[in-house]
């Protein structure tokens, strides 16, 4: 059972197993163990980012393609649901319509970019995707009639997901079982399915070919695999998964705007999560996304207190101010590319 679920790709290390179990348990029990809106929000964000980062890992870690358009696909999924819920009354049909449209658009766009940039010259891909993604970002913030521009869109979600719904009137472990909880478990369940699906993909024969392309493209081609086809297919799959992550994001936040879905800073966050977690292992995405989101939400608090204690020292104070946390993560990122190219997961596996 477990073997089939994990597609025979076990964590292969006691420490890693413990970490992954801890994360999954933490996410399952989050609404009850860590009550409060803020921690529930953190947990949902972790679930969504795990999917987003795992789908990016399919490209970067397994196929060796650097794309900067991943947030674009994420945004397409989110905007699909947002626009559909804005246009129609909040119902599951509207959600399905928006999600379907976003998924189709994202995969179609990925196909076009992939056919175009991957066939021409692989090294162009990073640059072409950066150009396309930034054009898309500008487009989304300019077409304010459709997308709400910089302000984004707010909308109503189906009643089952809103706090108005009460499952049972009594409290369970001091937590009111309302639509928020339903919504959280919907996101958790979808994320779990998507991550297990991605694990299935990378451990299939198709995934092996992708790894062969990453290791030695020339040889993979010589054996007889059409590398352009496989790379394009990987791009489309990862774009589809990213769009679904966007759908979850749109359902959770009830708000979709360029800053939360499309901006390049999210793209940089994704890069950091993949590399620090460990490229080429879906588990790396799970660990990386969890640590990063936790750090983003709680490290800044820590840094703020550090800034207070060093208030007298001019430069040091600036260095530890909470706004500068990306500086430290950037340095950590560069160092981990050099010294820990396999990331946290690679370290944990290496020790076992």
């Amino acid at each position, binding site marked *: 059972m477990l073997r089939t679920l994990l597609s025979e790709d076990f964590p292969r290390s006691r420490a890693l197993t413990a970490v992954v179990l801890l994360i999954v348990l933490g996410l399952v029990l989050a609404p009850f163990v860590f009550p409060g809106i803020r921690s529930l929000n953190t947990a949902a964000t972790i679930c969504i980012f795990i999917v987003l980062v795992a789908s990016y890992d399919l490209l970067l870690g397994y196929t060796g393609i650097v794309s900067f358009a991943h947030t674009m696909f994420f945004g397409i999924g989110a905007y699909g649901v947002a626009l559909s819920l804005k246009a129609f009354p909040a119902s599951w049909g509207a959600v399905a319509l928006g999600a379907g449209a976003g998924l189709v658009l994202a995969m179609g766009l990925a196909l076009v970019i992939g056919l175009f940039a991957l066939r*021409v010259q692989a090294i162009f891909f990073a640059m072409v995707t950066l150009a396309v993604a930034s054009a898309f970002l500008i487009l989304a913030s300019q077409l304010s009639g459709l997308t709400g521009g910089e302000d984004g869109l707010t909308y109503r979600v189906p009643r089952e997901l809103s706090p108005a719904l009460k499952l049972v009137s009594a409290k369970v472990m001091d937590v009111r079982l309302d639509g928020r909880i339903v919504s959280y478990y919907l996101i958790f369940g979808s994320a779990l399915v998507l991550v297990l699906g991605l694990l299935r993909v990378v451990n299939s024969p198709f995934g092996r070919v992708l790894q062969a392309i990453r290791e030695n493209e020339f040889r993979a081609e010589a054996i007889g695999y059409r590398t352009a086809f496989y790379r394009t297919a990987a791009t489309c799959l990862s774009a589809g998964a990213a769009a679904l992550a966007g759908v979850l994001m749109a359902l959770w936040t009830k708000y979709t705007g360029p800053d939360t879905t499309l901006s390049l800073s999210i793209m940089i966050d994704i890069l950091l999560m993949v590399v620090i977690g460990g490229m080429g292992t879906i588990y790396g995405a799970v660990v990386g996304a969890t640590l990063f989101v936790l750090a983003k939400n709680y490290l800044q608090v820590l840094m703020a207190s550090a800034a207070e204690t060093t208030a007298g020292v001019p430069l040091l104070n600036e260095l530890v101010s909470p706004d500068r946390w990306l500086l430290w993560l950037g340095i950590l990122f560069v160092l981990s590319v050099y010294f820990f190219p396999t990331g946290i997961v690679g370290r944990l596996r290496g020790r076992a």
Partner: protein
Amino acid sequence: MTDQTSDASIPSPPLADRLKAQAPYWTVPGLAVLGLVLIADASTWGTLTLAGLAMGMLIFIMASGLTLVFGLMDVLNFGHGAFISIGAFVGATVLLALTGWTGADSLALNLGAVLLAIVAAMLATGGLGWFFERVIIKPVYGAHLKQILVTMGGLIVAEELIHLFWGPNQIPLPRPEMLKGSWVAGGVIVEKYRVLAVVLGAAIFIGLRWSLVHTRLGLLIRAGVENGEMVEALGYRVRRLFVLVFVAGSALAGLGGVMWGLYDEIITAQMGLNILVLVFIVVIIGGLGSVEGCFIGALLVGLMANYTGFLAPKVALGSNILLMVVILMWRPRGLLPAGKG
């Protein structure tokens, strides 16, 4: 007699092939003529063309370093954007300190201030480029994936450092007194600053081309782009050449940053990343590693941005992507690809 036989034995290629080889050079005039037909108003067209050329020249200044670095050492440097931002901030610091010169009604003092700012920016970014090459890029030669990741990381850190030293806000950067405003000649509006940008860009293009074609160093650089191993086998240190090109490219990025900051009259830490997108489009259009291709690409992008900005502002956003797609459909390796690909 012998000359004649050898001439006869090597027939000149058919006209169509010769025209095909020339075709990339005709894209810029072609686009300009197309713009004239579509805009159908000579004075507006003149204004837009000049603006486009100025913008193209500025982009060229920043893109030339990136394309040479790629051509010579196969390094794709996302950190180039950081040099643009840092150049702009260093230049702005100098210009804002020299308000006495920039505010004066004398062209000489104004240009002197701009020149000083440019020199300071180039020194800063050149030095930083040296450091960047030594510390960040040297360990990852030959690994594209790591290069992209590491230089992207460098870009993040540099952006944060700018916030650290210059604060999180954007800084307005007024142009010097004599470079404000514009002349009007026969309905064509000629912004003074754009003239300076065109002159400077053309000078740098001519200087770069001259040193690449007519100096020994340029010969070695071109040979390195064509086949680095062979140059090394002949006893030249390609590595040293590369450091030189990297530093020069970074300095040019700094220069471009100052000029772009004065062009926009405002600077932000994110400007480097935003311009980097344009620079990439230019470098792809031109063909990675080629200075001439880069020049043509930059002019095309500049003209295209201004024409479509006037004709169809909504499409303008995608126009550069469209241009890139069209060029790559026609020539998959860019207009004038250099030796390596």
